[in-house]
């Protein structure tokens, strides 16, 4: 009886899971990620390299508004480095005592400053297309980091039977295959990695996907650590309670 119970529960779970596992027409291939699995944690070096790719390439068009500069201390930058990085951006603040708005350098507590003041400006600079905010891109796409990696490596020459619309590029992973984003990672060595890692296109794509996974889910490390403890506790509790149940019920049979 207990067995069939768990089979039924498992069947329901599988059904519920499979209900989600469709949609994208070309499934991006699965890559190895440091943050997968029970003991998965973000690879700090990859996060910093990925941040460098975001800063030097992606941030020209894509905002990251749910992150604050101070969050960068979590991926291993010192407070001074973060302060210095934030200060490169100007934000508008105010009103001051005279009732005037003013510009000041960004502080670590400010959210990331996007490339465009508003969506209309972003569209007008990008042939009408709106580059999405990347704060949650890994959670907001079927396939997560594999999708981001797949898109960045998925630019191909369009097959003969496909007629591309003006200002569109062919991408085998993107739904519908016509994407308004020009290939962002085009040549090896495009980013000069501070840690000396060879910046091939797949390497840069992998690093920036890792960085964006962290941006989507910055608490993953803490979650995995706590989960391990909770599950260990529950396994012990299950054992103790099962023994208690056997003991209490033993005088009935």
């Amino acid at each position, binding site marked *: *009886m*207990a067995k069939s*119970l768990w089979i*039924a*529960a498992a*069947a*329901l*779970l599988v*059904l*519920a*899971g*499979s*209900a*989600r596992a*469709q*949609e994208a027409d070309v499934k991006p291939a699965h890559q190895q990620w440091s943050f997968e699995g*029970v003991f998965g944690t973000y690879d700090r070096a990859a996060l910093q390299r990925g941040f460098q790719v975001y800063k030097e390439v992606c941030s020209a068009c894509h905002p990251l508004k*749910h992150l604050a500069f101070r*969050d960068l201390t979590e991926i291993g930058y010192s407070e001074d480095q973060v302060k210095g990085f934030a200060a490169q951006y100007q934000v508008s603040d105010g009103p001051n005592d005279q009732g005037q708005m003013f510009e000041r350098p960004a502080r670590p507590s400010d959210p990331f400053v996007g490339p465009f003041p508003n969506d209309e400006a972003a569209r007008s600079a990008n042939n009408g297309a709106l580059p*999405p905010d990347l*704060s*949650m891109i890994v*959670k*907001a*796409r*079927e396939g*997560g980091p594999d999708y981001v990696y797949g898109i960045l490596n998925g630019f191909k020459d369009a097959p003969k039977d496909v007629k591309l619309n003006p200002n569109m590029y062919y991408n085998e992973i993107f*739904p519908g295959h016509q994407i308004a984003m020009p290939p962002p990672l085009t040549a090896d060595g495009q980013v000069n990695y501070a840690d000396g890692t060879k910046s091939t296109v797949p390497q840069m794509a992998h690093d920036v996907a890792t960085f964006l996974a962290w941006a*989507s889910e*910055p*608490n993953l490390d803490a*979650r*995995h650590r*706590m*989960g*391990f403890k*909770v*599950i260990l506790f*529950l*396994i012990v*509790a*299950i054992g103790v*309670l*099962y023994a*208690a*149940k056997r003991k*209490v*019920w033993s*005088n*009935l*049979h």
Partner: protein
Amino acid sequence: MAATGPGAPNSRIVRWIDYRLPFVKMMQHELHEYPTPRNLSYWWNFGSLAGIMLVIMIVSGVVLAMHYTPNSDMAFDSVERIMRDVNYGWLLRYLHMNGASLFFMIVYIHIFRGLYYGSYKYPRELLWILGVVILLLMMATAFMGYVLPWGQMSYWGATVITNLFGAIPVVGSKIVTLLWGGYTVGNPTLNRFFSLHYLLPFIIVAVVGLHLIALHTHGSNNPLGIDHKGPGDSIPFHPYYTVKDSFGLAVFLLIYAILVFYAPNLLGDPQNYIPANPLQTPPDIVPEWYFLPFYAILRSVPSKLLGVLLMFSSILVLFIVPWLDTSPVRSAKFRPIYKKIFWLLVISVLVLGYVGAHPPEGVYVIEGRIAAFYYFFHMLVLLPLVGKLERPRPLPLSIGAAVLGRSATPAE
């Protein structure tokens, strides 16, 4: 354990209170002395699990509401703020979000258990009806809760589901306007859904109270489906079922923890991490998994009005199940034909769930129609007919006799 001290049942303080408010006496009666059939299987764990899940949902929900902003311009960002900046906010939200899924899984198993063992039959008809009321309230609560993060699926799910009421003749469009608080899903919709999402769980608590009163009036049904006949048939709830329920709870919490800590977004839709955009329809509008069977029934007929009617009837028909089933025997253990058609019903609901997740085209339409047909055929035709035609197997003399072999002597 210790029989002395201020909290013991016979201490002066407890006696002073009990004389004025017999709370301890009542708890003593309902937990300790409450006679429970000795043969309840693990399928009977799901009632108490559902109760505990309700408490977890209310506690996590109340704390989430302290940080959430029910405004269409700020809701999405406020949820992200909870996930990123509130201490353990990610834990609270993932507990609440996955808790909703598991709550439905528990309740569905609980309902199918009731169907299998005939727990809705005399004298437990009102107990069953109150359960269906709880299910309806849960569905409303879950639907409105899903709207609150104000992602793409929140917005478009709300649009599709509220529009269904527009199919009702004459008053339909009035009802839709009332639900929306305007002429489209927008800020007033979000505000009223938040208010109701906070209110309904407490109404559920009240109905659960009635459900428990009805339960304790005639006691639990049991896998044999026969009544208590003597002291050998029952055991006190405490410690026997408190310890059995605790063990079941720990196993359940393990599954819950695995979901929350290692696959928190497995059951969710990635689209809901994109902020609501009224100008852009997502490629596929799919409800959460626990609504998929009903969604499939809705889409199994080409007419909107008929689909809506069928969808609501699929739940409303549960109210009259106690009278549709004509068999005097409760448990499917002794009903050879009913046992078979019960599993057909389970399969039809699973097929409906599968179909509901896919676009209504090709083979899915046919599968969905067959499964939807069987669901209603089962409820409206097979239940009354099988009860009349089937020859049940002989029932055991008593629970005690069946559990302990031939001798029906009390075990204590």
